[in-house]
């Protein structure tokens, strides 16, 4: 236990002081901050468009009432007066409205002024236009309201329990769900790539430089293997905690900002219930651990540090399959997707997305999590066993040749222990 602690401390301290780990942690934050800054600047940089309205008084008043932060409607008695204001750059454009129903209008926008879309103007005029036509047709207010009321369609997703009972799902709209599914896939893929590569590199460096043998002269391969995996997991926990702190800090700092409030109000978080959070967290831990163990196993097969790329390739390929499948999950459930969801390495990437979009039930998700967890326990035990002989196998050609060599050593060891 003491040996595991020493290896854990060494892995954790060495990486937490390294530029490469901080670049893994900070690059998404910096990217996020830059994107947030750009959006914030663009929102702040856009001035209110000034539109001069040349029309009959009711239309002018109607439009003036619709002035907003984006567009301000000003009334002008004549086109000449409006054109003068346009020339003086008091206005960004002039809207000349012909009051004959249905309304027709002409907009003259200054080339270097704030742009106003035709859609904005059409929307602003359409209500006034409808009201004018209704008046001509002598429609009452309630009649007009009735005429304008659109048919209402309510959507609800349903699932069927084991007994065949239909259950209506409540909660978030599909946009939020799809967004959560996509974010989960990207987060998972990003973490496993970073930590898988780090693990393989770490072990490849130790083995390639023969530090490994110095370590194993003092402690067991198993202690070193688990100490390293735990150290890397701790780094990941710190990264997640830092992101949590960054998000919390940003929220506290910007919670009163109108844009941020608007964005937060538009997100329906009702889908993030206990089942979903527990399953997503479980898949995240089990999935990343599985890939880390696989990376450690493959890293222990290299002979030189230059071969580290060979070790990470299978991890990249396998995780890419999982990533693409998780992204495609939003397009609908297929038999292939059902099978892939229960395969270790792939299930932890696919299932959270499918659960997020309501394609599978919590029970199915936990069954898949159970399969992956059971696999992880057996896989970690086997990997630690293989690691003992992998670190003694050196092949300059490729890691598959090293695997064969390792297998020969393991066979010889099994025979020796039976004698």
């Amino acid at each position: 236990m003491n040996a595991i602690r020493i290896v854990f401390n060494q892995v954790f301290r060495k990486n937490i002081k390294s530029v490469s780990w901080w670049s893994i942690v900070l690059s998404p934050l910096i990217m996020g901050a830059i994107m947030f800054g750009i959006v914030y600047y663009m929102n702040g940089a856009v001035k209110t468009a000034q539109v001069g309205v040349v029309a009959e008084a009711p239309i002018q008043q109607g439009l003036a009432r619709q002035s907003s932060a984006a567009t301000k409607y000003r009334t002008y008695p004549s086109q000449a007066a409006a054109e003068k204001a346009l020339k003086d750059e008091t206005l960004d454009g002039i809207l000349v409205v012909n009051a004959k129903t249905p309304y027709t209008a002409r907009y003259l926008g200054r080339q270097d002024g704030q742009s106003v879309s035709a859609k904005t103007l059409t929307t602003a005029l359409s209500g006034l236009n409808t009201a004018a036509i209704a008046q001509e047709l002598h429609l009452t207010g309630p009649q007009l309201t009735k005429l304008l009321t659109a048919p209402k369609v309510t959507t609800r997703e349903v699932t069927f329990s084991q007994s065949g009972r239909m259950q209506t799902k409540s909660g978030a709209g599909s946009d939020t769900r799809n967004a959560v599914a996509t974010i989960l896939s990207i987060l998972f893929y990003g973490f496993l790539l970073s930590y898988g590569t780090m693990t393989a590199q770490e072990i490849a460096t130790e083995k390639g430089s023969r530090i490994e043998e110095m370590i194993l002269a003092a402690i067991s391969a198993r202690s070193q293997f688990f100490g390293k995996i735990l150290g890397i997991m701790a780094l990941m926990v710190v990264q997640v905690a830092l992101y949590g702190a960054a998000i919390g800090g940003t929220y506290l700092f910007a919670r009163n900002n109108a844009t941020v409030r608007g964005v937060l109000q538009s997100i329906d978080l009702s889908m993030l219930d206990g089942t979903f959070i527990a399953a997503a967290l479980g898949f995240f831990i089990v999935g990343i651990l599985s890939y880390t163990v696989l990376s450690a196993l493959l890293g222990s097969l290299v002979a030189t540090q230059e071969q580290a790329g060979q070790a990470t390739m299978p991890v990249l390929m396998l995780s890419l399959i999982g990533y693409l499948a998780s992204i495609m999950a939003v397009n609908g459930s297929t038999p292939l997707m059902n099978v892939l969801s229960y395969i270790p390495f792939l299930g932890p990437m696919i299932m959270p997305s499918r659960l997020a979009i309501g394609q599978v039930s919590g029970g199915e998700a936990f069954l898949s999590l159970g399969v992956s967890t059971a696999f992880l326990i057996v896989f970690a035990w086997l990997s630690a066993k293989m690691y003992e002989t992998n670190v003694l196998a050196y092949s300059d050609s490729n890691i598959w040749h090293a695997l064969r060599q390792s297998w020969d050593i393991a066979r010889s060891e099994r025979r020796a222990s039976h004698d």
Partner: protein
Amino acid sequence: MLALNGLTKTFGAQTAVKELSFNVAPGEIMGLIGQNGAGKTTTFRMILNFLHPDQGAVLWDGRPMAAQDRAFIGYLPEERGLYPKMRVADQIVFFAELHGLKRADALSRLDEWLDRFQVKGKPSDKVKDLSKGNQQKVQLIATLIHMPKLLILDEPFSGLDPVNAGLLEDGIRLLKANGSAIIFSSHDMSNVEEISDHLVMLRNGETVLNGRVSEIRQQFGRTRLYLEDPPLSRDELAGFAGVEKVEMQGSRYKLTLSDPAAGKALFSAVTARGYVTEFSQQPPTLDEIFRMKAGVVQ
């Protein structure tokens, strides 16, 4: 005490080590020699418990090595390497902790060891910023700082200049004086001859030499005769009974004798004609013995 009792290790059809036995007592240095592929690394790996013998046992103080905490071992592998981005102190302390030393104890010993090996660099320097020679010294310190009771050095002298080789020899002698049992392999027989008490030579996994260095040399008889400025010509020397070969080595002759007894006749003949600067009859050097033994299979 380390005891290897009849170790045999095979990989498939290949026998890497066959019935190898030797002991290394505390305060004793043993040289393990042999060509590449002779079985030295496999022997080290069995002592270190990386591999398990098909037959035989590795014992430390009478108990199987496999059943022991291995913190008392120090091992320097043949190919050198460290964590390039770690600081010298962190690196050495990490290995010291792995071998059971407390962090504070390791730090308190650090300066003394850096001085002993004359490392040019500070404890706070990153390893990659040191010269290759100094990196090797740091690795040696990481192997020795916990004063291992059993020290295994695989080709420790390779790549070291004569000054650093001397520092390493001093380090090895320090541990010997401290009662460590030491095994090292080397291709340089002068190092082996100089510091080993005992040596084992392997050839294709089989033990071809095993004993104290002086005894092994004596086994081959005093068949080498060195003469400086002899009053006899090369042809006259070659014509003596029992002289196999005459070679010039700088200003002196080296005679290879088929029978050590021929030395007496040569001594009489040489001294009868007056003064001779050097007349030295010796057993073959370890280097010659190594070549002879390795040559059997060539």
